[in-house]
């Protein structure tokens, strides 16, 4: 494959800025692209970086890797879990236990590369295995660090695994400072219960990734990502489910998680990452860690769970044949009803679950998933968009004969939004994302793990105004632990049909954007973070630290674990 962004940039350079940005208003927040132009001088493209080698690869050579599903262990942990390290452990006793061992191993990013690439992954998998979790079924995951202590390269062999957007206690959230060095392990307890006990707060497509302070971009780039999917009595994971409550969404081999990363390789075939603090753009698109793969699909419905794994690139995904996406979930939350979209815009860490119906195609047909977003620097897109059919190819769908009837459905109604009651709001806060002195800042300051930026009363609701102080940057802002709903985007409420009228955990801020968010803070006490999920910005201090404190009145849920748990010494059991 040759990355075509330069070709397209040149070919499309006569297009007026903004032309073509209006085709998918449903798929991104209003106003997010306004004025979103990088300066055209001093262009530095991924192709120009001397550290990035062009292997002249052909697209669609390798099949899309289907990520294996994690299987629980059937023996007791040794040493056993320490319940005192976990909030509400006895209320949510784990029903399944998993072990993941983080190691370094060789991976083939494309069969045309004459080298294996050293990567980091979980139990020999990159991406890590997909967890299939169910509401009402708490799990425990023990993760061991068996990464090489003397690793030579940009990443740090010290991990902390954040389960992105899951509602669980701070000590199981993979805080940036809860790292685990080689030879040690950490137990993560996931209660798999909806926030506030509200069934409308249930989630679907989540993911796990490294969050090591200062080294998140490097460690994610090396491979430390994977999916964590949640199922319940509606999203049951069975398209044949006879239960009247079941949505019967495409399931099994027709439900495919896909994580997008863009990478560059040095001439030795090893991952290359620059030191540019604006962000990093890779030469090659990968899906499930394979460069521009293909997937054989039957002429029927599929559920694709798209996730932008970063480090910095923004995507606008479209299908070259005019095929539409039925968007059913935003950031891992089922929408009130499906939204039909030509394209979907994904900033780093965002997820969209879509249903694509290939039933109109005959075997032999080929459909290309392409990225229509032009981006030449790490800090954000240029604001221009490629014409359909002329985007950068991301992967190919090849239609093969149908093997059985398609019993899956696209329901008209999915999951209603929780009602917003502004009378519950006890506090309003303003957070301005900007830069100063060469570092990325929030309210003028860089991240300080010892400084608490906000104390929040458990059980209360708050309104946070998130403002982008920059004129050239886009920031995908991620808030841990609780999901928000957008009250206003640049002073206006979202239209009811807007796909961002959803529960969310990533907010994409275009230059100058200001957004008001509403959320509750429930169920556990302790520390969490908010940060830019352009992980290069995050590593360069664009993060704050907030804390849920006991309520002044009423019952307290959870407890502050003191002293804060630390990594424990231990090696994985035989067979791992």
């Amino acid at each position: 494959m040759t990355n075509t962004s330069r070709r397209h940039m040149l070919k499309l350079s006569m297009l007026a800025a903004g032309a073509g940005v209006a085709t998918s208003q449903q798929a991104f927040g209003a106003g997010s692209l306004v004025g979103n132009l990088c300066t055209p001088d001093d262009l530095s493209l991924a192709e120009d970086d001397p550290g990035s080698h062009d292997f002249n690869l052909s697209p669609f050579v390798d099949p899309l890797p289907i990520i294996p599903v994690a299987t629980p262990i059937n023996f007791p942990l040794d040493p056993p879990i320490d319940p005192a390290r976990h909030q509400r452990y006895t209320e949510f006793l784990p029903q399944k236990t998993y072990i993941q061992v983080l190691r370094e191993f060789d991976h083939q990013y494309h069969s045309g590369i004459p080298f294996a690439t050293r990567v980091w992954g979980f139990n020999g998998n990159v991406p890590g295995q997909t967890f299939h979790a169910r509401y009402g079924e708490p799990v425990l995951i023990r993760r061991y660090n068996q990464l090489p202590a003397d690793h030579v390269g940009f990443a740090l062999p010290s991990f902390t695994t954040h389960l992105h957007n899951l509602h669980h206690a701070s000590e199981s959230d993979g805080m940036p400072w809860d790292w685990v060095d080689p030879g040690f392990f950490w137990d993560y307890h996931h209660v798999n219960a909806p926030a506030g006990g509200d069934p409308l707060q249930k989630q679907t497509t989540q993911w796990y990734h490294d969050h090591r302070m200062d080294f998140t971009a490097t460690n994610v780039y090396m491979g430390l990502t994977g999916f964590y999917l949640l199922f319940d009595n509606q999203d049951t994971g069975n398209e044949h489910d006879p239960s009247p409550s079941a949505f019967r969404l495409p399931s099994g081999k027709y439900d495919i998680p896909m994580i997008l990363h863009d990478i560059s390789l040095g001439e030795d075939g090893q991952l290359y990452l620059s030191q540019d603090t604006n962000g990093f753009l890779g030469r090659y698109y990968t899906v499930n860690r394979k460069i521009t793969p293909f997937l054989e699909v039957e002429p029927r419905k599929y559920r694709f769970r798209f996730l932008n794994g970063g480090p910095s690139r923004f995507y606008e995904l479209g299908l070259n044949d005019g095929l539409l996406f039925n968007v059913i979930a935003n950031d891992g939350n089922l929408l009130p009803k499906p939204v039909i979209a030509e394209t979907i815009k994904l900033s780093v860490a965002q997820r969209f679950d879509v249903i694509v119906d290939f039933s109109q195609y005959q075997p032999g047909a080929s459909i290309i998933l392409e990225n229509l977003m032009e981006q030449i620097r790490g800090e954000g897109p240029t604001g221009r968009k490629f014409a359909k059919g002329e985007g950068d190819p991301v992967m190919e769908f090849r239609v093969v004969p149908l093997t059985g009837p398609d019993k899956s459905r696209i329901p008209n109604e999915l999951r209603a939004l929780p009602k917003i009651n502004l009378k519950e709001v006890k506090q309003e806060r303003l957070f301005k994302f900007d830069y100063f002195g060469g570092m990325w800042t929030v309210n003028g300051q860089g991240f300080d793990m010892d400084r608490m930026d906000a104390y929040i009363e458990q059980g209360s609701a708050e309104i946070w105004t998130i403002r982008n102080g920059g004129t050239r940057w886009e920031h995908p802002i991620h808030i841990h632990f609780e999901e928000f709903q957008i009250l206003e985007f640049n002073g206006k409420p979202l239209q009811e049909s807007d796909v961002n009228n959803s529960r969310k955990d990533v907010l994409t801020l275009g230059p100058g954007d200001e957004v008001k968010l509403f959320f509750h803070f429930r169920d556990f006490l302790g520390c969490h973070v908010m940060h830019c999920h352009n992980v290069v910005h995050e590593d360069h201090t664009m993060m704050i630290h907030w804390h849920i404190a006991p309520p002044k009145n009423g019952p307290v849920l959870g407890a502050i674990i003191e002293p804060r748990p630390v990594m424990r010494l231990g090696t994985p059991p035989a067979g791992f």
Partner: protein
Amino acid sequence: MKSRRQFLSASAALPALALSACTSTGPSNLITASTESRICKKPGGPSAKYFPNVVVMTHTGRRAWFYDDLIKGKIVGINFMSVKSEEQFPVTQNLAKVQELVGNKLGQGTFMVSITTDPEHDSPAILEAFAKKHGAQEGWIFVTGKPSDMQAIYQKLGPHGGYEGAGVNHHIWRYGNEPYARWAASHAMAQPHQLAQRLSWVEVNKEPNSKKA
């Protein structure tokens, strides 16, 4: 042919050495002045591609190759400063406290490198006085040089891809372990103990028992 050290001391007016011109031509540790391109014959370490190998001057008046002599083989914290901007960006004052916490390791494998963004004004003599004022010990090196050579450093190590230029980069503090190619950055005004701790993060501890748990 001269030894590399001889070459360094004899090359007062060398043009900038771009890293891309730095190639290995064999086991020799020598350098030749016979071509315009000034090829560095010393093989680079694992982090060579991240650092320009330009000739700079230290506050002690020593001429040095930026990468070969100040970065290679070391754990190092790197920041940008200038004597005139210290009042507005008191990073040297903050790093003086980091120096205290680094303690005996300073100069023994761990180094601090402070790069002026005002080379026209900050001569080695001015930097020497500035270093003395802030109590800089051996192992904390202030760096100046020809503006064009310094520009190569800003372009590579400055924030925002270097294109914001000097003067807006005083809050970035890069740190890393060169032989292991581990590099990250933090805020130069972060609490001193946090910066000192970061220098230990990039150390290589092969024995897990040596760490607290």
